[in-house]
């Protein structure tokens, strides 16, 4: 089947990284790149393969993050179990947003606006509810053991996010090689034509947004465990939504490796911006905005598309 070997190869290359990178800075860099790549992959399932551009993936991310934080703090639930539950709640919110918007045929910018509105509603709720810690946020007490999903050294987090990356790649591979994926791409290309061929358009989109939401929920839990803190703006603010969509657009929409490639590239940009311009609040968003405009204008197929075209040209010249 297409692409399977490539995925295994990439994972095999990434696996020994913690033993090769002896600096904490670069290990953190790798973790953040994989983390954003994972969020991007979650968005890519719905936006890249399914063509439904969400502007509010924070709704699913934040729900996952709060699921973990609240259950741990209020009910003492095991943090690893919280990871699984965050996938469930993230997926449920995805299904809810999908059911409401796809049922009424919202597409394009209308869908984007509705998802943005959902994220904002959740942000305001989290800001005012007591059990989410309201505006103060929630802090997870430090207890660095692997059993507690807090690792004494960064390598542990690296392997967790690598595992999630593998999950994301596996889902992307499945979409590229299955009936569900074929139908999802058909819906992206032309809904009427898909319906005429017996595709249940609403059901297909619902599967995609549920999966996408579940992965975002996992990402939210990872964030909480890595930074041990969450508040309404981090959880449901636009920064996460923008990162999640920027990563696959830069890397290559609707491709398995696009998000990973985009995340690595953006992580370099991010570090460079911080090094040259200091950490002025919101400046990275300005840089992201400029990149987004440039990518859409000049490289609509992303870095992965560019790589593919260059490879083909090179092959054409030599062969």
């Amino acid at each position, binding site marked *: 089947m297409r692409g399977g070997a490539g995925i295994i190869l990439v994972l095999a290359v990434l696996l020994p990284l913690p033993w090769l990178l002896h600096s904490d800075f670069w290990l953190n860099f790798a973790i953040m790149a994989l983390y954003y790549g994972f969020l991007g992959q979650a968005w890519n399932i719905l936006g890249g393969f399914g063509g439904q551009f969400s502007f509010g993936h924070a709704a699913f991310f934040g729900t996952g993050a709060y699921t973990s934080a609240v259950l741990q703090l209020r009910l003492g639930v095991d943090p690893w179990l919280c990871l699984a539950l965050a996938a469930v709640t993230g997926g449920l919110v995805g299904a809810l947003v999908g059911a409401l918007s796809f049922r009424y045929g919202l597409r394009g910018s209308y869908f984007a606006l509705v998802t943005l509105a959902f994220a904002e509603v959740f942000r305001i709720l989290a800001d005012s509810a007591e059990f989410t810690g309201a505006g103060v946020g929630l802090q997870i007490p430090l207890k660095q053991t692997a059993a507690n999903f807090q690792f004494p050294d960064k390598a542990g987090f690296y392997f967790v996010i690598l595992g999630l990356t593998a999950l994301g790649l596996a889902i992307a591979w499945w979409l590229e*090689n299955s*009936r569900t994926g*074929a139908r999802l791409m058909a819906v992206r290309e*032309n809904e009427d*034509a*898909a319906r005429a*061929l017996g595709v*249940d358009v609403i059901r297909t989109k619902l599967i995609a947004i549920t999966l996408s939401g579940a992965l975002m929920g996992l990402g939210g839990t990872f964030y909480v465990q890595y930074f041990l803190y969450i508040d309404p703006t981090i959880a449901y603010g636009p920064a996460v939504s923008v990162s999640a969509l920027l990563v696959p657009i830069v890397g290559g929409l609707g491709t398995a490796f696009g998000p990973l490639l985009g995340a690595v590239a953006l992580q370099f940009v991010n570090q460079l911006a911080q090094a040259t311009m200091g950490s002025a609040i919101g400046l990275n968003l300005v840089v992201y905005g400029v990149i987004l405009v440039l990518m859409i204008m000049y490289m609509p197929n992303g870095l992965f598309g560019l790589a593919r075209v260059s490879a083909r040209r090179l092959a054409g010249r030599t062969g």
Partner: protein
Amino acid sequence: MLEVRDLSKSFGGLRAVAHVGFAVAEGEIAALIGPNGAGKSTLFGLISGFIRPDAGHIRFEGRDITGLPAHRIAALGLVRTFQITQPFAHLTVRENIAVGAHLRLGGRRDALRHAAQVARRVGLDGRLDQPAARLTVAGRKRLELARALATDPRLLLLDEVMAGLNPREIDEIVGMIRAIRDGGVTILLTEHVMRAVMQLSDRTLVLNDGQLIAEGAPRDIAADPRVIEAYLGAGAARAYVGEAAHG
């Protein structure tokens, strides 16, 4: 096989289809003709579940399918094509056809293999790995046909599959449609290319202003004064028939 009874649909104040009733028998090729704006495409939309009727009933193989969603109707074996071709532009020809094949085949490999076989039947086998966006008009018409065919339909609704084709391409597609019927698929088509209607159809239905005005063998239909007037305007029949008698 298909039975339409008293079907009506209005858009605002415009009556696009009014009290239309007809039947299509298994194994035949029926042609639906009529001037532009007569309601042919609306009728196709109604039968295939893309448009909800205001009144009336549609039965397919004895089952009432009125108001069913389009994908369910397609799954029952009643599949349409579009007059304005609707390719999955960024997918290859093979992947396009496989979407149709997936209606009956769950496995990706099976669907792709079946797609290649169907492509051969419509003469697209040389373009399997091209993006659909790069096909010519004739290629896109064939792709519409191939995708629908790949679903293994019982009844095909073909909406002007010959529009925009040159005479040689029309002859080819006429041959394909005949072969499809001979393979056991019933066909209802709309068409402006009268030569093709004459060659292909066992029975012709004429729609004008949303109403069925004539029905019969294609040769009789062509001589029917109501039909001539619908196409050429009131009084045209007399002039036309008179001219034909002199010539």
